[in-house]
């Protein structure tokens, strides 16, 4: 396994939703060339529904990952860690990072308004006049705890505080020589559009002395900037207007062209993605109500992170804070269809996700549809480790795994319901032969039948258990389902 860590900055609601997608991909066993993924969520909207959903999922993932070993099982294999759990490089006595979780705070945004943050009342008249030109009254009176409501001009001031914070210093002190940094943000919102270039600038040209300054300056840095892929319903009372999304994107891109690419060459790799087919979400300005449905653009954005980590070091050279050979990538689907399946993804993407997501979904389907109690099958009672029904009410299964799987199914259902829709699986019913949408499975058996269900699934579990070494129950459980679903894929789906 790789020895490099990935520090993943996820800015704003879109950043959180991409992180959520990445978490599900990693849970299914998608390979990433990283020893650990360290997500760092930046969003001043503390009650943001999307962010809180993502944090819940990350915590469940960690809880599951920490209880499993990985001799045969790849589900939940990649460690996801908080910055707090890492030791500062070269300084074993340094105190742990202030922030225990995944979300980093930004000073001054917990309460108060924008005018308070910039000490507007303390400014002299000329400066007050200048600020009044740059910011409207509603900008100045905006409460920061709900984010920037699509105003990157506010975000760029507020988020600057993050780069001067102890959290940023803690990040710098934990960045090792081989580690990489990736930034996820949208270009048409407030937080992401503002935070992304700020973060890049402060990594390549730190404003204050950081631990390991040179290492930070020359770190391999990638990013994805997500162009409009959804809209919001018109609402005269809301400050968010989808009519401005394109113009904001154009303005941001113009800034990026001059300050992030071109002669600047701040980024080793920059990915772009967006969509012309959009759904209008309810116009929620933030807080708990901002809970957008998952979208396939977010899943594909998560693939850009995996792609970035797979690029060899020699192609991501940085000298004196500048990338020598910056890479720019966009994503295209195979056939412009409003309803996507696996076959609409490019070959590389399909190879990365089709088998792993299929295996994981088969496992999830069994757990949620067929495991109210253990069946009387050899895989349950053979060997020294036998499964009792009490296992199903233990924390690992009932609190962590099943809850995580419910979020996973919810994620799939949301992507299916969105526009553009992505429906890789048919999750209804108990016949498993047509679970993968758009793929005819192989005919098997003497009678050459394609149909199969949970009865045959038990056979795969029995066969998987047969040659398995002895493990304690949790590990045996996960290893069994990984091996069984791997055999199912090999037998019935693989070409």
């Amino acid at each position, binding site marked *: 396994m790789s020895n490099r860590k990935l520090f993943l900055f996820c800015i704003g609601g879109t950043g959180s939703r991409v992180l959520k997608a990445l978490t599900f991909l990693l849970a299914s066993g998608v390979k990433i060339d990283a020893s650990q993924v360290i997500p760092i969520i930046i969003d001043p909207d503390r009650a943001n529904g999307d962010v809180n959903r993502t944090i819940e999922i990350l915590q469940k993932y960690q809880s599951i990952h920490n209880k499993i070993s990985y001799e045969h099982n790849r589900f939940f294999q990649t460690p996801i860690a908080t910055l707090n759990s890492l030791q500062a490089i070269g300084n074993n006595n340094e105190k742990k990072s202030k922030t225990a979780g995944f979300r980093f705070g930004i000073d001054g945004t917990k309460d108060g308004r924008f005018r308070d943050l910039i000490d507007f009342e303390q400014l002299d008249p000329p400066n007050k006049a200048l600020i009044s030109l740059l910011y409207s009254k509603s900008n100045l009176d905006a409460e920061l705890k709900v984010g920037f409501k699509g105003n990157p001009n506010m975000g760029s001031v507020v988020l600057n505080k993050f780069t001067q914070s102890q959290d940023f210093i803690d990040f710098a002190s934990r960045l090792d020589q081989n580690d990489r940094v990736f930034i996820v943000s949208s270009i048409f919102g407030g937080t992401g559009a503002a935070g992304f270039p700020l973060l890049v600038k402060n990594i390549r040209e730190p404003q204050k002395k950081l631990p390991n300054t040179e290492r930070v300056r020359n770190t391999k840095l990638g990013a994805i900037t997500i162009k409009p892929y959804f809209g919001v319903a018109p609402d005269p009372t809301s400050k968010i207007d989808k009519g401005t999304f394109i113009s904001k994107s154009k303005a941001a891109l113009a800034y990026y062209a001059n300050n992030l690419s071109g002669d600047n060459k701040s980024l080793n790799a920059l990915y772009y993605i967006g969509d012309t087919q959009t759904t209008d979400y309810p116009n929620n300005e933030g807080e708990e109500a901002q809970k957008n449905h998952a979208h396939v653009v977010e899943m594909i954005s998560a693939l850009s992170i995996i792609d970035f980590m797979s690029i060899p070091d020699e192609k991501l050279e940085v000298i004196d804070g500048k990338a020598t050979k910056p890479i720019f990538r966009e994503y295209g689907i195979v056939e412009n269809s409003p309803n996507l399946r696996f076959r609409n993804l490019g070959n590389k993407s399909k190879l990365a996700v089709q088998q792993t997501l299929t295996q994981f979904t088969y496992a999830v389907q069994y757990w949620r549809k067929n495991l109210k109690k253990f069946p009387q*099958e*050899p895989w349950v009672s053979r060997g020294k480790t036998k499964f009792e029904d009490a296992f199903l009410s233990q924390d690992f299964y009932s609190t962590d795994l099943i809850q995580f799987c419910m979020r996973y199914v919810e994620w799939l259902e949301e992507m299916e319901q969105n526009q553009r829709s992505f429906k890789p699986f048919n999750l209804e019913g108990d016949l498993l032969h047509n679970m993968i949408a758009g793929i005819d499975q192989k005919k098997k058996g003497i009678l050459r039948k394609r149909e199969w269900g949970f009865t*045959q699934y*038990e*056979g795969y579990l029995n*066969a998987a258990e*047969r040659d398995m070494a002895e493990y304690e129950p949790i590990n045996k459980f996960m290893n069994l389902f990984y091996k069984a679903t791997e055999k199912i894929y090999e037998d019935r789906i693989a070409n």
Partner: protein
Amino acid sequence: MNDFFSKVFELWGGNISSISDSLYDYGIYSTIGMVMFFVCIAIPLIYYKLWDPIGLNKPKHWAIIMFSSALFVTLVGFLYAFNEFNYEDLGFEFFDYLSWILTLFLYSSLFVSIFSILVFRFISTNNRKNPV
């Protein structure tokens, strides 16, 4: 072989019937004994290893299959003896065959059960716990 199977089927002298001598004289004991031995090994082997059905792994399924194989051996044993003796015009009645039929059925059931429970179920993936 005929001597060996005659002792087995006649329970070492405890199960002599009117057709016992004829079964011995015509070598039917050895023929049917080999058929019984072969079927009592082949059926469990097929069931547990070659077929190993996941959908038929309950005790009742096992019972049906083993019962059917015992019935098959009994039928073969009866018909073979009946045809042979009729050809030789030995004049036996159906009632004379009853002891032979019962013995065959019980022995077949016993041997197929022993082979399946004590030997072949351990090489099965889906039926290792079937019927016990």
